[in-house]
């Protein structure tokens, strides 16, 4: 019984975290893009326009929930949920602190990436069922994008896993706390992960799924009211998931260098959130300034450049790491970093 209660509490907590993350990132996006564009952004409601979110939510809740006449109504209604749910589940595997993780599973990294793979499915369902050509083009583009970024994304998380000797995200964080942040030995992987995270979350310059100058609003063209709200929220929650994953894999997660991980206490979640938001800030600055890739150029980037590069780098890294370990074990290097779990 207590396990069930615990599970329900975790669920409620995660939904709250997701909503707060989504809402705060939307506010942040408006302010950051505003500053980057020499605009003001929201500034009327509440201090610095922070209450602007509430009328937005009320608007989304009270708008008419319409669906196009010839749309596949069942799939049309289901699609936002297919988009929303995997993103919510992905939150469960992110360790926010020592023991503060909803599902501390051994396959944490793979579970997050597996659930995020479901998101393009929901996007495709949304575009397919909308009975709109713009939505359909957006949907097909998202599938094309998905098969582009998935492989380099999966390959780029291998070096941290190899170094930690575990797929458990908590272990990966603690290994970094005991040695160095994995961005130091595996910088190319971190960069490729960052690129793929942009593709995964449909951020500019890889936002061709919803390219507003071409496809009006892409796969979500026909959506209104809270169904659109779900898609909108998922996009920004996805930002947080990818940024938190990047922080966990490469930037030491909730730990800080030189601080005992077990004495972080309540500061652990704050450290992770700050790290994630810094990464999101980078996402936003890129989003605000760069042109958009064309869908075939992105496919070429993925298949011709990123995949060979990640394969090569992962191989080089694995050989380098193994020889480093063997040398350390033989005492030649004195075991400086203590990598390898």
């Amino acid at each position, binding site marked *: 019984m207590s396990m069930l209660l615990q599970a329900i509490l975790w669920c409620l907590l995660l939904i709250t975290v997701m909503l707060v993350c989504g809402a705060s990132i939307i506010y942040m996006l408006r302010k950051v893009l505003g500053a980057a564009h020499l605009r003001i952004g929201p500034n009327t409601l509440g201090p610095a326009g922070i209450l602007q979110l509430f009328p937005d939510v009320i608007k989304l809740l009270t708008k008419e929930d319409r669906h196009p006449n010839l749309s596949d109504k069942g799939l049309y209604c289901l699609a936002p949920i297919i988009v929303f749910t995997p993103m919510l589940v992905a939150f469960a595997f992110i360790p926010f602190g020592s023991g503060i993780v909803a599902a501390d599973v051994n396959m944490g990294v793979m579970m997050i990436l597996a659930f995020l793979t479901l998101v393009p499915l929901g996007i495709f369902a949304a575009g397919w069922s909308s009975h709109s050509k713009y939505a359909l083009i957006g949907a*097909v583009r998202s599938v094309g994008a998905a098969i582009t970024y998935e492989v380099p994304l999966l390959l780029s998380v291998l070096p941290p896993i190899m170094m930690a000797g575990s797929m458990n995200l908590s272990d990966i964080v603690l290994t970094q706390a005991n040695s160095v942040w994995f961005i130091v030995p595996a910088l190319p992987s971190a960069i490729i992960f960052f690129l793929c995270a942009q593709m995964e979350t449909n951020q500019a310059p890889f936002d061709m799924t919803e390219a*507003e*100058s071409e496809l009006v609003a892409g796969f979500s063209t026909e959506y209104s009211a809270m169904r659109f709200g779900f898609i909108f929220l998922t996009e920004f929650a996805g930002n947080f998931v990818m940024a938190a994953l990047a922080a966990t894999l490469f930037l030491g997660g909730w730990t800080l260098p030189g601080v005992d991980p077990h004495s972080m206490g309540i500061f652990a979640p704050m450290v992770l959130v700050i790290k994630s938001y810094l990464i999101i800030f980078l996402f936003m600055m890129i989003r605000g300034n760069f*042109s958009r890739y064309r*869908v075939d150029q992105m496919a070429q980037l993925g298949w011709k450049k990123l995949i060979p590069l990640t394969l090569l780098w992962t191989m080089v890294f694995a050989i380098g790491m193994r020889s480093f370990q063997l040398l350390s074990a033989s005492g030649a290097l004195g075991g400086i970093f203590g990598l390898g779990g």
Partner: protein
Amino acid sequence: MGLDQQTMLTPNIPFEGDTIAQEDLLEGYVNPGWLSSEPPKGIVVPRNTRRIADDPLQLCTDHYLLNVGPQHPSTHGALRVVMEMDGERIMSGEAHVGQLHRGIEKLAEHRRYHQLATLVDRADYVSGITVETAVALATEQLAEIEVPTRAQWLRCLMAEVNRIASHYMWMGPMGLDSGAMGIFLYMQKDREVFLDVLEEMTGQRLMFNYVRPGGVTGDLTPRAEQILRDYLKIGIKRMKEHWDNLFESEIFQMRTKGIGVLTRADVLNYGATGHVLRASGVDFDVRRDRPYDAYDQFDFEVMTRSGGDIFDRVVCRFDEIRQSLRIIEQCLDGLPTGDIKAKTPKVLRVPAGEACGIVESARGEVGIHLYADGSDKPLRMRYRPPTLYSLALAEVLLPGTLFADAIVNMGSFDFCFGEVDR
């Protein structure tokens, strides 16, 4: 093809007093195909099978029709294009113009010569001064009005100010079409400077009504001069920033270089003018080759590029801004003293005849052809919109391109649909 023929290219409605036969007007003119004797429904683009059949990797799927516009965000006004698509590739397209038709040419027949400026302002609402100048030039030719030198210089000054404002208004959204959001707002900030000057001098930010037959309505104010002199100090630096921000971006270059290539023959055959012409290697600018007002007294270069792709079109215009800044500087330094307007009667009656005012507007060569019957109103006004002729180039560009490229292509022509549809 002669420029006058271009100006009168579309067959006019025969009217009383017309002594020129249609055949004479169109002598030596090669019909590019879309202009038939029947009123065209749209600019029909024949399916180009060559480029697609040559590509063995092309996946052949069912074709579908995609209706782009008139409410589409990237049609820059109100253009409707019906595209036949194969996946993301455009097989053929049909541009339906006329969504913004207000009958400006017909309305001109019910306006006095002084009032025409307000009409053409509403046609090309982004660079009104240049088009007003065309009307004024045509009227002055008819009425044989001598324009004071200071007024001529002021016209050039304001035309260049307006040209830069228009170029910034185009280049930013052009970046937006390719997905770059920031550059749009950075360029708006620069445009604001020039709009301030226009507001100071004419009282308006959009529909200026500044150039009149015989001169201009307002003299250069000290504040306007100060704003311009301040900007001239930082102008080149600001342009360097824009250059680094947009043109140096590798993604923008990837999206524009080698895409939408127009050959010299294409642009000449379709009567394209302005930056479309110059980006394809044709060295022609009305300001230099047929100088009007005071343009023969300024030292400036006509910027040409040879590639003819989107990147060249954008860069060609970017360089034009620099030249416009040079002209503005020379205007401010050497502005002669004197009247700003010749004495003209309140109601201008011109002798019967016809006259053509040709100017280089921000978008290309604008020609205003006025037919006068001796009364105080023109019998017929013909407005040659440069971008309508650029739009006909869709026939060359659309078949075989990707949808995303077509959007950027469309942006690179700087369509102003108030002008295309009139």
